[in-house]
């Protein structure tokens, strides 16, 4: 009994029922507040800011916008400004100053269809280089934006002429360890994962994991790319070791089947890059730890380096709701604090204990 209580526990600290469908929730950096984004039943978008006070959530601000909002990130703003970049159902990318939300700081009609996923890099005092935002949309394109350049993206990854387009479901930045290098990883609904190198403006690696990719994330954005987790439909996720790329086999990976349903999100713990949490379609959360193998590289038959994938251990799991948990965000300031939102129109603040002994 004692060994089970020494494992990290996932405790649902606060739960709040909302009156709208919430798609994404993010912590505001350096504060005990978070943002929820979604859409009202009347078809308009909403951003709500909550603060945790004495075990309860207080609504600090509610902002209503014309179009439903699908995703948002604070990744590309400075710590002082803390502007929220959102993608909405109409394909528009907006960057809002939450103190004065009437008019966006930067706005562009990024895509022709809904923006499914957004990520930011270069802000929050993490990493070097220009702050950039990447958006992935149902129209099959992935675009990188810089808020100093109006109307046109700085990079555009689009299908070739005549190619049938597949929806892009998720995007993530990584490999931003100096101000020149950046990588964008995009996951598509036919199972394609593509890694783009923005320094060389080329496709660096691609693979297909057969089931639609719901979420990709690098374990850290601001280091030489170390690990990438990609989750997909039918309950599978793959962890790729990104340190060694083999010319034909690509990156080594280990895959795990969990959740018995779509794995909607993966998020790495900001304080420990080998611990990550996956959110499933049955309303459950699994906490995993990645163990590195004894040797991370080995030589293949032609004496070329290839990577060796490690193993993944389940630390804890908990079922919070009956509906899928669509978004998950760890607090960068307090280890173990996270907010998650699910399709039962509720947002939950969770505390995961004992992560320092993991």
């Amino acid at each position, binding site marked *: *009994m004692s060994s089970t*209580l020494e494992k990290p*526990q996932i*405790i649902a*600290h606060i739960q709040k029922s909302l009156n709208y469908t919430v798609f994404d929730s993010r912590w505001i950096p*350096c*504060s*005990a507040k978070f943002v929820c984004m979604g859409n009202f039943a009347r078809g308009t978008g909403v951003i709500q800011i909550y603060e*945790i*006070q*004495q*075990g309860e959530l207080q609504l600090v601000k509610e902002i209503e916008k014309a179009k439903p909002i699908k995703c948002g990130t604070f990744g590309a703003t400075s710590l002082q400004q803390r502007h929220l970049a959102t993608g909405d159902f109409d394909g528009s990318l907006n960057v809002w100053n939450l103190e004065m939300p009437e008019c966006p700081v930067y706005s562009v009609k990024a895509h022709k269809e809904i923006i499914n996923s957004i990520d930011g890099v*270069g802000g929050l005092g993490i990493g070097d*280089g*220009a*702050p*950039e935002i990447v958006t992935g949309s149902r129209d099959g394109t992935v675009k*990188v934006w*810089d808020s*100093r*350049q109006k109307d*046109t*993206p*700085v*990079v*555009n*990854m*689009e*299908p*070739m002429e005549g*190619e*049938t*387009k*597949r929806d892009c479901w998720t995007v993530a930045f990584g490999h931003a360890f100096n*101000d020149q290098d950046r990588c964008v990883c995009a996951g*598509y*609904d*036919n*199972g*394609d994962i*593509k890694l*783009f190198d*923005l320094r060389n*403006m*080329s*496709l660096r690696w*691609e693979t*297909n994991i*057969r*089931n*639609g990719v719901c979420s990709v994330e690098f374990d850290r954005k601001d280091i030489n790319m170390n690990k990438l987790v990609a989750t997909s*439909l039918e309950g599978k996720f793959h962890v790729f070791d990104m340190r060694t790329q083999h010319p034909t086999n690509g990156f080594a990976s280990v895959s795990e089947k969990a959740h018995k349903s779509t794995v909607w999100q993966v998020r790495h713990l900001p304080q420990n890059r080998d611990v990550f949490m996956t959110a499933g379609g049955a309303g459950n959360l699994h906490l995993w730890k990645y163990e590195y193998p004894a040797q991370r590289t080995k030589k293949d038959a032609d004496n070329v380096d290839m990577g060796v994938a490690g193993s993944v251990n389940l630390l804890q799991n908990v079922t919070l709701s009956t509906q899928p948990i669509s978004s998950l965000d760890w607090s960068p*300031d*307090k280890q*173990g*604090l996270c907010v998650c939102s699910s399709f039962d129109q509720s947002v939950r603040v969770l*505390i995961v*204990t004992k992560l320092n002994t993991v």
Partner: protein
Amino acid sequence: MPLIVRDHTWTQNQNTVYISVPLKGVKTANVHVICTDEYLKVSFPPFLFEIFLFGPINEEKSEARIGNGVAVFTLQKRTDELWEQLFTNIDKDKQKHIREQAILKVQEKEAEKSKAKATRIQQEKKYALETMMKLENEERDRIQKMKDEECAKATAQLDFWRETQRKTAEENENQQKLQRTGTNNNQLVYQKTERANATPAVTLLHNTGNTTSGQISRKQKPKDLPAPRSAGCIKISFTPRVFPTALRESRVPEEEEWLKKQAEARRAVDTDLAELSDLKEEERNPDWLKEKGDKLFMAGNYLAAVNAYNLAIKLNRKIPALFSNRAACHLKLRNLHKAIEDSSQALELLTPAVAANAPARLKAHVRRGTAFCELELYVEGLQDYQAALDIDPHNVALQADTDKIREIIQGTT
């Protein structure tokens, strides 16, 4: 017939009767006693001892001690009186009646005893179950308490952290204010000292001291950001599959069926026709014949092509391409009905409709449509052209033809 024992002895006092019956060598295990309030029977085969008691006794309080070759009965009398004799003389019927009653009573008693035992066992089981449940509940409560303690601890930590955040935020604000006033002072003093022209260095140092303390947690200079990236475009292509659909969209069952049909068609060569005996080996191969037919078609020799296809079809009726190509030949020869038949046959063989056989179906539809139009059956022709357009919406020539047919129909009606 059991042997009746009569050499028993008995004594009595006011409230008890003592009867002693010799067991005559029979083992104690074989002794069986039936005793009621007015009757006592001891049977130890082959002996039997029974008496009808003079007065009523209290059977529950009486006891029997069997051992050492003798059975001693201590019977408690119901009424305290001395009996003149041990037994009463009663007639045979009454005896029988009493015997029967005795047996009944004994049976009842046994039944009661077993019932009592059963209820006792059940109660004990229930008790055991309840104690188990209680133990488990306690265990569960203990675990829950530990969990709650963890939760409370974490909540306390969270509140503490939030307080510290708030405090640091306030401190930052205060320092900001201080910094602002500090810079103001700095300017004023600088001007003053310039005018006064007295020890500017010392006062300046003093003020800069203030401002630096206000700057501990704030970066004064904004970071120099690199310029926005020069625009780039990366073209991508998506993973091709045998059937280019994602797993979740795949029409795998139909596609499997189509592949199986193809495989069967390859194998279904019907070789036991008499006319084939005088054919060369290569002429028996439907593929070779198809190729021959194609070459003849391209050369313009349509009759020969038809012959080649006929032979190939005789060998293998399942290849749709043969029918489709023969339809094309008939079209050129203006055997329009035959063309229609053949393209219909081809289309039948091209079910189920999957992406793999789309071009073949397209050709078949176009050929049949053309044949219909030549026969002036424009409506059927339009249907076929429409079906072809469904398969390939971007074909400009096809669109033009469809529009033409539509105009002709509208023109004649």
